[in-house]
């Protein structure tokens, strides 16, 4: 069987199909642990994991923390707003100081694309990218793939539509890399101002109308409109965006009758997804994604936590 020989998990772009399969299969085995009365196994006893988060996060940080704890590792959370970062310490200095305390894995979220790659070459610890700018968010793509596999039984051959702000979405980028490798047909839709130039070069079909993307789709993945970027005037108003790009009962009928709806969260109700779509457990798998996220992160921590060579 394949083994994971990488020191770090930096992005879907550099994971092989075999490695993705290994991570997903390992995660499927871990899923059951979260359903036990005693949600803990002793596997990573004595390992320490630092969650270093330079950007706000509820889901991802909690998910990594719970994942570490369920494997019996010690998890430490650092958020930039309450750390020496506010005193002007650079990322490199912070990393060197953390390295000196000898943790085993550092999970990093940073607003600058490439920040985890920089640290990976700098410190001996394993680095997991928990989101770097608009670049990649590999653990999100992996949990999305795990959810698709759970609901659809496969990834290859499915039509998967990603709708929203493709340009600024690390979730979209990681999913495009990963889903393409796994043989899915990926289509994207969003306003022209939010569509990267030459997006077709990533191996996807691009549309400006949501309807064109979701027709006959097996999976509709809605992306969050990053309200914090509203001041950049990428679209005239939230209301107009919602009118054209909100997933609702009417346009969702264009997808396959057994299509599922995904969203990486946090959702803006009534902006990119209407509440009755988001809350209908008949096809919305948004909370399954969250549950699978813990299992995927357990798998990553487990597979990366090497021994003392």
């Amino acid at each position, binding site marked *: 069987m394949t083994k994971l020989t990488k020191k770090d998990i930096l992005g879907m772009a550099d994971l092989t199909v075999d490695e993705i399969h*290994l991570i997903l299969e*390992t995660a499927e*085995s871990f899923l059951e642990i979260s359903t036990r009365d*005693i949600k*803990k196994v*002793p*596997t990573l006893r004595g390992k320490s994991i630092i969650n270093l988060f330079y950007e706000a996060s509820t889901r991802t940080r909690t998910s990594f923390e719970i994942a570490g704890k369920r494997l019996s590792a010690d998890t430490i959370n650092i958020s930039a707003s309450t750390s020496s970062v506010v005193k002007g310490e650079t990322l490199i200095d912070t990393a060197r100081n953390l390295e000196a305390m000898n943790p085993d894995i550092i999970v990093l979220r940073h607003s600058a694309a490439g920040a985890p790659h920089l640290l990976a070459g700098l410190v001996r610890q394993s680095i997991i990218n928990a989101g770097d700018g608009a670049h990649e968010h590999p653990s999100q793509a992996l949990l999305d793939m795990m959810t698709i596999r759970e609901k659809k039984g496969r990834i290859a051959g499915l039509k998967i539509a990603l709708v929203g702000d493709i340009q600024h979405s690390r979730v979209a980028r990681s999913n495009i890399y990963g889903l393409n490798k796994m043989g899915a047909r990926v289509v994207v839709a969003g306003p022209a101002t939010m569509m990267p130039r030459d997006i077709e070069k990533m191996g996807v079909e691009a549309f400006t109308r949501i309807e064109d993307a979701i027709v006959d789709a097996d999976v509709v993945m809605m992306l969050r409109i990053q309200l914090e970027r509203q001041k950049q005037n990428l679209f005239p108003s939230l209301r107009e965006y919602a009118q054209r790009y909100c997933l609702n009962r009417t346009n969702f009928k264009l997808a396959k009758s057994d299509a599922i709806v995904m969203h990486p969260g946090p959702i803006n109700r009534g902006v990119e997804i209407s509440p009755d779509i988001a809350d209908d457990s008949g096809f919305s798998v948004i909370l399954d994604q969250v549950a699978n996220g813990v299992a995927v992160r357990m798998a990553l921590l487990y597979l990366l936590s*090497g021994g003392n060579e």
Partner: protein
Amino acid sequence: MAKKHSVKVVMDSEGIDRCLTRIAYEILEKNKGMDGLVIVGIRTGGIYLAQRLQKKISAIEGREIPMGILDITLYRDDIAKATQKPSPGKTQIPFDLTEKKVVLVDDVLFTGRTIRAAMDALIDFGRPKMIQLAVLIDRGHRELPIRADYVGKNLPSSLWEAVSVNLMEKNGKDEVTIEEDH
């Protein structure tokens, strides 16, 4: 490189079946029936033996005895040191273990470390009333104070011998072999 030779078959298909029949009766005798009794097979060899024992016990008693599957990878005492981690299999214990009498089933009892890990794992699922151990082969060389309650065959072996339990479900034939490594 070590050359393998002299593969000896120590138990054939009928031998395995007779052993399991005897163990099934022994389990029922010792526990005075199957009330509160469950079977848990250890991945992977133990699963098939547990399924066969389940069939035999259910046939004798006329009702189904519950069976679960345990993967012990995450409880291994050498897991933290492994540079490349083995991928764990799924654990399925579809019933509450509290106050149950659990018969753990494995193919070969050797150092006892697998059983130690299995007991830790079981206790994370509840507090069983009792844990018993059934193995097809006991080959000795224990490294922990563990012994089996039900043994198919005691097979005194040297450390440089390899004992393999081949089962129809996994290897296409039922056979226990002992192989010498020189």
